[in-house]
């Protein structure tokens, strides 16, 4: 007869860059149930909208997350722009697209490094983060910040990227693509890596749908849903297919994220080739009129939902942020059921958890 015990996992754990706690109910080494516990780093950033005016809140939104900071700021600006009926210039839309994809590349490379670190492949971790540094250098060159870009504003962008810089970025990305192809051989072809990821943590398409999962975690289970297809920024003018896998295990999630990096590189090339000259921002006067908007964007971890409600004054009534990790927690709990205790860290990582934005 098996022995049942409860083992606490987190909030401090070597594989967790941020705090989440799970009570794991085990039968011998098999997980039969996981109960989550969050709330260690709730910062009340939504509440702050009562004290910061609608322009200042852009900077708060950018600080919700230290990895997809740019997309938080952009999603907030897009929501307010919809309420104010502001059409931003075409060039600003392309700039947003380029910076979004640069964010996705650095986020996915960060995740690949963390994953390699979690299963003890240190040189793979170094290589992933070495590549990520190149992207961070490009981000710093174009925005002045490595993590917090601070280039969003309601009505467009605060900074432009000159033609020479964009062409230089494309050249650097071409070089990164060659390196990533080498890295991919190890991530998807190495026996040691495969043995830790293959057939671990299955999530079926039906489960992914019913449990409300989002992003690469959902797409690796075969659901082709990507909020970039809803048509924000310059994505309607970019040719790209949604990347999916039908397998639904940890290996498939890695495969999807790696292919998304290649795709982001291609999107940047397309955007640089198509970006028009012109203004980078539309002048915005007055306060947002009474109204509301649900803005959905595709962040590296998946769909984020920004609900903004305005009342006609400079202070908004409400900003509510549904982050991708928040949506992925119920599906994570499902994938943990039946797994081996030793696989728990890998499985937690495969949703690419970002707890600081989850708790806001």
């Amino acid at each position: 007869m098996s022995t049942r015990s409860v083992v606490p996992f987190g909030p401090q754990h070597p594989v967790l860059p941020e705090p989440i706690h799970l009570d794991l109910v085990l039968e011998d080494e098999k997980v039969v149930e996981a109960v989550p516990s969050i709330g260690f780093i709730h910062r009340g950033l939504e509440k702050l909208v009562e004290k910061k005016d609608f322009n200042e809140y852009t900077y708060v939104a950018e600080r919700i997350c230290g990895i997809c900071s740019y997309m938080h700021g952009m999603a907030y600006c897009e929501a307010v722009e919809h309420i104010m009926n502001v059409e931003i210039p075409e060039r600003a839309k392309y700039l947003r697209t380029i910076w979004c994809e640069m964010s996705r590349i650095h986020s996915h490379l960060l995740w690949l490094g963390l994953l390699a670190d979690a299963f003890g492949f240190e040189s793979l971790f170094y290589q992933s983060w070495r590549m990520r540094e190149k992207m961070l250098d490009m981000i710093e060159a174009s925005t002045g910040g490595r993590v917090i870009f601070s280039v969003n504003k309601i009505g467009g962008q605060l900074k432009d990227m000159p033609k020479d810089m964009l062409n230089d970025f494309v050249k650097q990305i071409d070089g990164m693509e060659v390196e990533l192809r080498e890295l991919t051989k190890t991530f998807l072809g190495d026996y040691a890596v495969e043995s830790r990821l293959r057939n671990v943590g299955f999530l079926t398409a039906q489960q992914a749908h019913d449990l409300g999962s989002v992003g690469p975690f959902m797409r690796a289970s075969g659901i082709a849903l990507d909020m970039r297809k809803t048509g924000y920024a310059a994505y309607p003018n970019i040719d790209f297919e949604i990347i999916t896998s039908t397998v639904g295990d940890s290996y498939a999630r890695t495969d999807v994220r790696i292919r998304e990096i290649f795709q982001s590189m291609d999107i940047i090339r397309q955007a640089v080739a198509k970006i028009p000259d012109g203004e980078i921002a539309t002048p915005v006067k007055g306060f947002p009129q009474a109204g509301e908007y649900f803005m959905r964007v595709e962040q590296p971890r998946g769909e984020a939902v920004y609900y903004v409600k305005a009342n006609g004054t400079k202070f908004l009534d409400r900003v509510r942020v549904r982050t991708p990790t928040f949506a992925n927690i119920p599906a994570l709990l499902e994938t943990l059921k039946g797994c081996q205790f030793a696989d728990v860290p890998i499985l937690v990582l495969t949703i690419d958890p970002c707890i600081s934005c989850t708790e806001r």
Partner: protein
Amino acid sequence: MIEGENIKIESGDLVSKALQMKTDGYRLVQISSVRTQTGYELAYSFGKEYDLVNLRVEVEEDAEIMSISHIFEPAFLYENEIVDLFGVKINLISVDFKGKLYRISTETPFK
């Protein structure tokens, strides 16, 4: 852009409407709460492909509503958050954190 659709419903119809959304193949996207002069307005967002449908429910200050976590499993996290931060009374949440989802040192719910 694909815009969302808003449908106002009574709080007593919430469970049956949620069940209908489930039957129609929608997934739960999010639940949010906003303070109004007399209480709260909750928005239950459901998605099907890229369509977004928001069921809007007005709830009086001390009124109680039913959880939809037995229909849409992920709802338990959203509902616990709303109980924590807004103090909306939601009954029969599948995993009920009793107002302690977030470990906040100041008194909650925020009024």
